[in-house]
Each structure stands twice: as C-alpha cells, then as structure tokens.
C-alpha cells in the first residue's frame, strides 16, 4: 500500500471530521465533486452536512469560518488555489488573526492553501503565500514537505485554537508517496534535521526540501556532506534547531520558492545574523524565485524557481567562501 501527499490530506480531513462534530469543511467544489484536486473526495458522502460547497467568495468564506469559530466550531476552509486567498486577505489578517487579541475569544480555523508552482500553471495558480500570512501577528503558518507531515500537521492544525494557514504544495500532491500514515508525529512547530552533514546547512521548507535533498545528493559525490533542516512550520520558526545545525556546519543557505523581497528566508537570515553570527564561517546566503510574476511556460518556470542545480551552485560558492 502507498499513499500520496494529496491522499494524506484527504485522510487527515476524514479523521478530523470523524473525531469531532465541530469540524466542517467549506470551499468551492469540495462537496459531491470532491474538490478541484480531489482532496475532499468521498467526504461529502460520509458527512453531507459538514462538507459544504461555497460560492466563489473567498472573503465571505473566511468571514463565515470566523463566525462559526465564535460558535465553537473548528472550520477547515479550502481555497481552490492559494493565489485566490488574496480575495479573502482582509478576513484572514484583520478579522481572524486579530480576534483573540481584540476579544479574548479564540479563532480555531484552518485555511488550506494549495500552493506553489507546477509546470504550465502561470502567475495566478502557482503562488506561495506563506510570507504574506506569516507577517501578521496571530497566524500560525505550516508548510509540510512530506506525506507524513501533511497528515499529522493538518490534524494538528485543526486542533490548534488559533488561525492556521496550511500551505500544502501542489507539486507534491501526486509526486510524493509514503507506505503508511504516521501514528506519532513531531510537533508541527519543531523543525526537523532531515539529513545530517558538516560542510553546510540548507534551511528549506515545503517543495524546496526535495530540491535541497537532490542538491545534497549531487554534492555528496564530491565528498560534501550537506545538512538539511526542514522548517515544517514558518510561523513560528524553530530557530533553536536552525542555530544548532549552523553550530555544526558554520555555513548556511536558506531556500524558499516564494518571491525574494523579504519573506521567510530573509527572516531566517536576519535571525541567524543577530542570534548566531559567531557561529558563521561565511556570510549567510539565501535563494528564492526570480523577482517576477510566475511564468507559464515550463522552461521559464523551471528557471524561475530554485532547483537542485541552482541550490548546488549556490552551495559550491558558499563552501569556497
């Protein structure tokens, strides 16, 4: 038996619906149709009153979730694509994320963002939004990179009493497979040392973890041992695990698929520079996409985002410094 990243997301939602009658899923085409990516396939049949189609109204979908949370429920909102969450931006950052602070009433909602690029998807079906939402106080932002994490972290997201932005990567939906789903899991807010090393550390999250692993494989043929830290959650950042790794390697590259101005990788470099400067043997480096909208053509798209090759190149330069 094997299970994909996408199926893990479906299974996590099935279990969340089974475990609590307070859980419901709301989104476009998610009912009988099973969702644009089929991540709610069959759930409507088992829970017709709690797997509900919405109109194309991202603002109102999130507002509705906030109201339901006030009433004690734990809604899961599926955005059809992360890109469209910009239409619900106000309700996410101003309504949901501020609610506990303003009113002392928790806002336990999970917003699923099918994120990231796939060949041919273009500027409006490829975005990574984690930076935008992580910027605001009151949100927790998860970016799982494995089948097991997609499952366990989504279950944890639903159980958390604050708004969770769950960035699930579309490129991983079908590519990643695992033999089984985990029974125990590392807490979502802990980073994981995915691969030990001693020459340099790559900090990555979501689909970039796999590009980093491929780069590390290439570099290992030349005798370089690259440590990889999978952040798993980008708000909050588990900076202790990051600094622990840099203490071993002395060199660091932070990799993210999102746009280069500011963002998660910049935040990591900033925290490393102020809290772990003395651990560094070379200037900390970062790699993001090119600073343009995301291109449609697969040849342009592959060049636009970080890849194993561009990461490898950056690491070779970092090691020589």
């Amino acid at each position: 038996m094997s299970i994909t990243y996408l199926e893990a997301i479906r299974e996590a939602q099935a279990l969340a619906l089974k475990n609590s009658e307070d859980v419901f899923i709301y989104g476009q085409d998610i009912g009988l149709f099973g969702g644009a990516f089929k991540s709610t396939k069959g759930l409507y049949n088992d829970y017709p009153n709690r797997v509900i189609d919405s109109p194309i109204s991202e603002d109102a979908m999130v507002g509705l979730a906030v109201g339901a949370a006030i009433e004690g429920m734990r809604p899961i909102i599926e955005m059809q694509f992360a890109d469209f969450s910009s239409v619900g931006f106000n309700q996410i950052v101003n309504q949901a994320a501020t609610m506990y602070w303003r009113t002392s009433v928790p806002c336990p909602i999970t917003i699923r963002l099918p994120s990231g690029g796939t060949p041919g998807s273009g500027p409006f079906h490829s975005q990574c939004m984690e930076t935008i939402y992580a910027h605001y106080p009151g949100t927790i932002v998860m970016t799982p990179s494995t089948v097991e994490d997609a499952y366990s972290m989504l279950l944890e997201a639903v159980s958390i009493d604050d708004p969770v932005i769950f960035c699930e990567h579309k490129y991983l939906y079908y590519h990643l497979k695992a033999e089984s789903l985990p029974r125990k899991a590392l807490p979502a807010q802990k980073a994981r040392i995915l691969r030990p090393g001693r020459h340099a550390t790559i900090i990555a999250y979501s689909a970039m973890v796999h590009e980093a692993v491929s780069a590390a494989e290439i570099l290992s043929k030349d005798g370089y041992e690259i440590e990889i830290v999978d952040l798993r959650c980008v708000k909050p950042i588990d900076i202790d695990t990051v600094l622990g790794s840099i203490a071993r390697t002395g060199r660091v590259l932070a990799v993210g698929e999102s746009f280069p101005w500011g963002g998660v990788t910049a935040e990591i470099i900033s925290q490393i520079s102020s809290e772990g400067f003395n651990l560094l043997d070379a200037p900390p480096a970062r790699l993001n996409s090119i600073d343009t909208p995301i291109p449609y053509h697969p040849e342009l798209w592959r060049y636009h985002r970080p890849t194993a090759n561009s990461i490898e190149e950056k690491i070779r330069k970092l090691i020589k410094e």
Partner: protein
Amino acid sequence: MANIANHEEGSESDLSKVVLDTFRWMILARTFEDRISNIYRSGKIFGGVYVGKGQEAFSASMAINLVKGQDVYSPLIRDMAGRSAFGEPLVDAARTYMGSSNGPTKGRDGNVHRGNPREGMPTMISHLGAMISVVSGVLFARRIKGTLNNSVGATTIGDGGTSTGAFHEALNLAAVEKLPLIVSIANNQFAYSTPTSKQFACHDLVDKAVGYGVNGINVDGTDLIDCIQGFQSCIQKARAGEGPQIVVGNLLRLSGHGEHDDAPYISEEIKKSKLGIDCLKKSEKRILDEGWCNQNDIDDMFKNAVNEVNSAIETAESESAPDPYSHDWNAYSSVKFDQ
C-alpha cells in the same frame, strides 16, 4: 431590553410600551454620545469619536426586536442606541472610549470596536461589510449543530458600505444558504464626505435586495414607529425561515463622520429636508401627541439618562489604564511566542 412579539396584531398599549422602551434607549445613546463628544473636545479621548446622532431610532428599533442570549447582533459605528437596546452595559462603552483596562478590549482597541462575541455581539473591525459574513457564520454553525432554533443574526451597515466586495459576497452567500440574517442599511446620504450619487447608481438601495434574491424594505429612518414596525416585520420573516432581509432606513447623519469633522459638505438644503428631521425630537412629539406619556415622564427619562451616563463615565475614569509592562503581549491563545 424588551421583546415585542406580535405587536402589529396586538393592542395599542403593546405598541406604546415598545415605543417608550426604544425611546429610552435613544435618549441614553444621545446623552452618552453628547457627553463623550464633550470629553473628546477636552482632549481626554484617545482616538476618534463616531456618533449615531439622527440614527438612534433606526438603530435601536432593530436591536429592540432581538433577543439577547438567543440572537446575534453585530453593530457598526453609529449604533450606540442599538448596542444599549441589545444589552451592552453602558460602562463598557465608557471604558472603551476612556481606555480603561477593565473594558472588553482591555485598551487593545477603542471607541466603537467593542463587543462580546460569545454573548452574541461579534466585535466589529473597521473594514466595511466584513461583519456580515461573520454573523452568517454563527448562524451557519448553529444550523450544522442543530442549535439554530428560532434565532436570527443581525448586522448593520451604511450606504457607503454597500459598495464593498465583502457586502456583496456576504449577502449573496447568506441568500444562497437562506440564513435568518437581517442587514440594516442606514442610508444617511454620506459616506464620510461622499454623497450617495458617487456611491451607487441604482434608483434605490433597496433594489439591491432583488438582485440577491432576498426580501427588502424601505423605512423612514426618522420615524420611530415606522422603524420598529419595519424591523419587526422583517425579523419575523427571518425567524419564519424566509431567508435574509434587508431594511433600508432613509435618514441624514446629523453629525460629521467623526467629531473631528464639521461636515461642510452637507448642504443646508438637505439638512432642512425630511431626511434631516431629528428622530429624537420627532419621536418625543409623537409620544406626547399620542398621550403615551407626559412631559414630566420624558423629562425624567432624560434625567435618568444623565445619571446613568455620569455613573458610567465616573467608573471608567476611576479605572486604571493598561500597563504596557505587565500587559500580556500575546496574539495567540494556543502558544506563547518569545517577544
């Protein structure tokens, strides 16, 4: 607060009772906001002051028809009268304006941004239209849980707020789900300084109801009895499962956008029109004409309001300001971040 079931079919004494109850909340709101405006001018209020002068009848008439503990009510900036009629303690209003650490937001937000979500009053954010879907969400959750029973949700907006995408999305969603939602639109002719001619092009705001497939009515926002009866009719329809209801109140904002604004853009012509009639004075005259009470009774209502306002302000003034050094600087209920 009062619940006025079936007064349309009831006796005149039922109507007079609800009119007098609502009128008392109008007086309290006007008295409180006049006082807060004076304190603002003396420089003792942090942030702005936004009053509902001229909109008290429309605001209070919605809330008087709701049942606290059962219904949901999310007021907006010009709903002091509605808030009080729904059951908001006056001292909480004073505390929020004066920045008391004992207020519902503990100094984290001010003036009209107060409420109590778990007691049926979701707390407004400033983005117009955003509360409509939140109220809908409470109703939606109740329906899933089987606890909707006879409850309704009500929220308010102005003519300007109807131009937002959030208003459109939320009204459409509520209509699709046939939720027992009542949206009042105080058509007070200006959104800050912008006249309705630059806000919408439909002949009448209530025409929007047809587009959403919901019921909508117009009421004379300066006329207390028209407001009470209009809301009663629509709220009964919502309770009976007839889906969302829009109630448009036509009136004039008898103030600036906030107390910092002397509103030179409001013409004398419109002030002297029927829209510019002060609902408080009009209600008082009608009550006296009908003989529902006498002048002494009304004088007592004003005196009682002054006493209540004095007491609330005094309490809020005597309380401590929030202390940044002992404040819980945490935006999360589930985790504690290092600051």
